[in-house]
């Protein structure tokens, strides 16, 4: 058969497949006529064989590319993964099952990420305690406008920083959108370099430790804990969790072991999603606390109460994530 009669004969079928695919992509699966689905699959198989045949008959790039695209489209439709959940069930499953279970299963990586940050914090704290001059090397210059003691006095003597709901709401929103972006960055660095993810956690730990040491040296350590504690109890774990998700993805990408990168990523990515969504949810909560509750000075809320709230929040978070029945692997497989 020569190419011209081949094209003349098959062209109507290709047109029909194109038409069916257009319709299938527009209409939801449930309301798509089963007969048409069968016809679509048949025409797709035919197009596959036509593509092979055409490749042996001609080198015409326009014809081949058109068939190539058509077959590719059919392939994408026929072999796609169709499992879909309703939004409500998906959300319930996400918050009550997937997030805590994934963290339990990934507790090793969460531990490594937490270790990197704690190590950084200890390093920063000790360095500054041993020699206060090191603080200037570790902390960006903006923090040196006033000494911790002066700052505490100014805040405790002056007006409350946050005076209305509106102010608290917009401040909180700014905080959590920014923090979520930072957690995305920590994830990305971990996913692509592994070491970068650990480094950003370590570095943030150093900053935190160094600043804390300064406050303790000035004798206002309690103020620092009460100020940072309530939101820090959620925010710091959240950043650690996004770092852990980054380590998970990075391990799949950079150290796939005996399997292909594609298949190890296919296994890793479904775990990354609940971890990052969980991180974002925790950060929203932390931002709301940071924008309101954390900002009150001792005139309104005593330090001891704020520290108690911080401890309670931290314990609740750990209980939600790590105390529970079984793990994903023992239940779902």
């Amino acid at each position, binding site marked *: 058969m*020569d*190419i*011209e009669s081949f094209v003349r004969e098959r062209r109507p079928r290709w047109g029909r497949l194109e038409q069916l695919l257009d319709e299938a*992509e527009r209409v939801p699966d449930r309301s798509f006529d089963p007969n048409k689905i069968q016809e679509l699959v048949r025409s797709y*198989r035919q197009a*596959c*064989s036509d*593509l*092979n045949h055409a*490749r*042996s008959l*001609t*080198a*015409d*790039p*326009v*014809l*081949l*590319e*058109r068939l*190539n*695209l058509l*077959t*590719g489209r059919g*392939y*994408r439709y026929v*072999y*796609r*993964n169709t499992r879909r959940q309703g939004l409500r069930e998906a959300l319930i499953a996400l918050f009550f099952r997937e997030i805590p279970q994934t963290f339990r299963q990934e507790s090793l990586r969460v531990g490594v990420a937490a270790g990197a940050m704690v190590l950084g914090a200890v390093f920063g704290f000790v360095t500054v305690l041993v020699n206060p001059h090191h603080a200037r090397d570790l902390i960006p210059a903006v923090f040196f406008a006033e000494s911790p003691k002066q700052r505490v006095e100014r805040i405790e003597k002056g007006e409350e920083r946050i005076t*209305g*709901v*509106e102010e608290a*709401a*917009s401040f*909180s*929103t*700014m905080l959590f*959108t920014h923090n*979520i*972006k930072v957690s*995305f*960055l920590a*994830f*990305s*660095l971990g*996913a*692509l370099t592994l070491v970068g993810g650990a480094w950003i956690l370590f570095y943030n730990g150093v900053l935190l430790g160094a600043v804390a040491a300064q406050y303790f040296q000035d004798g206002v350590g309690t103020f620092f804990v009460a100020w940072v504690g309530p939101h820090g109890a959620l925010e710091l774990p959240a950043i650690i969790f996004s770092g852990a998700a980054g380590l998970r*993805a990075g391990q799949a*990408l950079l150290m796939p072991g005996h399997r292909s*990168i*594609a298949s190890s*990523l*296919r296994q890793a*990515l*479904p775990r*990354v*999603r609940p971890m*990052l969504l969980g991180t974002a949810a925790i950060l929203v909560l932390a931002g709301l606390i940071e924008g309101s509750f954390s900002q009150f000075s001792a005139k309104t809320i005593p330090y001891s109460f704020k520290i108690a709230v911080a401890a309670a929040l931290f314990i609740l978070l750990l209980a939600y994530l790590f105390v529970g029945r079984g793990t994903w692997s023992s239940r779902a497989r």
Partner: protein
Amino acid sequence: MELARAMNRNEEDAAVVLTPEHVPIRLNPAGLGTRFWATLLDAFIVMLVVTVLGGALMAVLPGAISASVMMVFAFVLKWGYDMYFEVRRQGQTPGKRLCGLRVVDRRGLPITFQQAFVRNIVRVLDFAPVFYGLGALVALCDRYGRRLGDIAAETLVVQERAARRDLETLSQERRFNSLREPRVLRRVRRLIGLEEREFLLALCARADRLKPEARFDLMEDVGSHYGRLLGIEEAGLSAENLVRGLLAVLYSESL
């Protein structure tokens, strides 16, 4: 098959997927320029929606929370826009659709929510330090033109309108029009059959891989044959230009 392979100038650039029917399908990675336009279009659409809808929200909601609602709205739209369209619209955001681009899985399948999620979160890194600086650099070095997000999620942005350009490049039509005379055109149609047409196509497709001397000799032989056959006398027209011009005329209906 050999012919088809010779045809693909950028054979090495294309990702080939083998379907369960054992048919190889080529995925043509998109270039940076097209992706840049698509991104710009999408950014513009997001900005427009945030301004218009956000402004409306600001006007309707009470003052105390309107600012934060607005911020949350902009945030969700910025991060959710790509994820939504890439999952629900077969890998095409409106910008990509207009530019003829599509995000697909490395196996040529539609991307899953997990993949869309990861590739769009890593965007924060691709975007650094200014407007996709890092992403563009990585895409330039990557064989399939993937940015970091694509690498982490094992996805690929493909171009769906590559063929026309390929044929135009091969025949280099613009250089040349002395074959356009009606007398010559009639002879071309009458004298050159299907097999010869395919032969000329294959010759042009492979020309770049031939040794310069071999290419020159081959083109001289073929060119002088068709020059005699068609009765073309033109000084200063190289044999290769004649062959390519002939190809352009023969395939003018498919261009």
